């Protein structure tokens, strides 16, 4: 039986090795490097908390945190609304429902970089949105200009991400026993009452699960903003993932400072990870 135990571990060993070597150790390395002065070439020099002071004293640090929160929370909120609406719509019985369900998940299945390129073409001065505006006699808008950039990138994230909510809510709806509705109908409940007193309360668990997962993904979204605005203009759309990338790899950048930026925002993500693990996957 002893040998069996060792054999059992062999199944799990590769995954533990992969996670440890290319996930956990690199994360630890980020931590280590955040206390150094120079990372690439030359001697690394321990400089204590200097990088942390630099980051904490820069105004931009607070800007990127607030941008990230605005981007993520508003995108998740709108995605949840659209997802719920479409789930209720496509839970009704009508011909062609199956095709529409499949059609609805296409934006979510499309790669994030492709969706970003789609909207680069749509937001352009000669793009479709401005052609429609000029056609009805309105002036063209600079969708990725300073004023509109944040709503515009949120819209792209929403357009791509809502089907995940739709899929979650739809399976939540299908899990509600039909008998509850039937007995409510006998009691003369209106459609609105059925929605408020039966449907929505029954979606609560699914709602938390999909919102937490989506919040996690949206706060980690790099591709959409990097390609559409590169965090600009005037840092209006600079979020944590994009800012860390530029801090680390743009010209004149500093990898140790970028590392300390990541360590400083880590608690935000750890709280979210804890909530996801606890509520979405039922583990603590």
């Amino acid at each position: 039986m002893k040998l069996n135990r060792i054999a059992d571990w062999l199944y799990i060993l590769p995954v533990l090795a992969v996670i440890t070597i290319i996930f956990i150790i690199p994360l630890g390395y980020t931590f280590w490097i955040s206390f150094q002065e120079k990372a690439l070439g030359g001697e690394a020099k321990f400089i204590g908390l200097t990088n942390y002071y630099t980051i904490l004293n820069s105004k931009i640090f607070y800007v990127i945190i607030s941008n990230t929160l605005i981007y993520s929370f508003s995108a998740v909120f709108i995605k949840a609304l659209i997802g719920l609406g479409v789930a209720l719509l496509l839970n009704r019985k009508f011909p062609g429902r199956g095709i529409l369900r499949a059609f609805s998940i296409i934006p979510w299945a499309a790669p994030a970089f492709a969706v970003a390129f789609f909207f680069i073409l749509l937001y352009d001065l000669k793009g479709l949105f401005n052609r429609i505006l000029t056609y009805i006699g309105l002036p063209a808008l600079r969708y990725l200009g300073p004023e509109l950039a944040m709503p515009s990138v949120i819209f792209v994230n929403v357009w791509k991400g809502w089907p995940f909510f739709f899929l979650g809510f739809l399976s939540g709806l299908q899990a509600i026993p039909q008998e509850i509705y039937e007995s409510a109908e006998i009691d003369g409940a209106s459609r609105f009452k059925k929605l408020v007193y039966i449907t929505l309360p029954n979606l609560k668990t699914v709602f938390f699960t999909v919102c937490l997962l989506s919040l996690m993904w949206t706060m980690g979204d790099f591709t959409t903003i990097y390609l559409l605005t590169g965090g600009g203009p005037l840092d209006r759309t600079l979020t944590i993932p994009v800012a860390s990338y530029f801090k680390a790899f743009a010209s004149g950048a500093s990898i140790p400072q970028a590392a300390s930026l990541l360590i400083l925002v880590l608690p935000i993500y750890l709280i979210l990870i804890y909530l996801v693990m606890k509520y979405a996957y039922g583990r603590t």
Partner: protein
Amino acid sequence: MPMVERKLNITILTLVGILLLILFVGIPFYWVFNLSLTSEEEAYSPKLFPTNPTLNNYFDLFNPSKAAARAARFENFTGPLVNSTVVALIVTALSMLIGCLAAYNLARFNYRGKSYVSLYILFAYVFPPFFLMIPLNIVINMIRLGDTLIGLILAHLAYTVPFSTWILRGYFMGMPKDIEDSALVDGCSRFQALWRVVLPISAPGLVTAAIFSFTLSWDDLIFALVILSKAENYTLPLAISLFMQGGEVYAWGELAASTILATIPPVALYLLIQKYVISGLTGGAIKG
């Protein structure tokens, strides 16, 4: 309110909903598809419908002289297309191999510390990968795999392996034990039971996990950016962004056509597994 009137009312509401849904999802796809069929001359003021629809933008992508003239850094689009495909296929194969073994362990074996092992894997699954861009860039350069596709594959494995493990774990846990048990009684080893009994009847779970791994790798931009630098190693997102310069599109048709091409494989794959997407992503926490 009379019954008939109410029914009609609902139908109109449903119809309006359907129409809005089709427009909301369809318009962006339509516009890009339309641009991809628009000829070079018309691209400067694209029409709602192309007057002379042409496939030239697609052909030009694979025509060395044209593509090279556009995006001076790669010969033609075959290179990036092959790079993306090869990377995604190898990532898929490796994460399925490692993921199957680990998921079977988590779903079926009992040993001390298993809950910690599950937590460790779940932690890696939910952790946002962008945190790894700095250390993986350094580590992969250190082991001299910087600017290679192998380096990129390693980076992708950091998040596809925990992902496929977690999906398959949920799937294996939902499967009845009886068939396996009888195979074990008949003298099969655990590994034979997994290989000969469990895997053949797990096709939907395996296909779902494989498709997720493939698309996670295919969709990646950030690790391609931090690991690759030579144009011959470029994957699709890097190659497509060469059709832009300083935030301005200068090859409308090619940008549209290449984006459509990059979109087709993941969309086709997801449509195959749409039933399993939600239960897969939530590790069985929400049933599909």
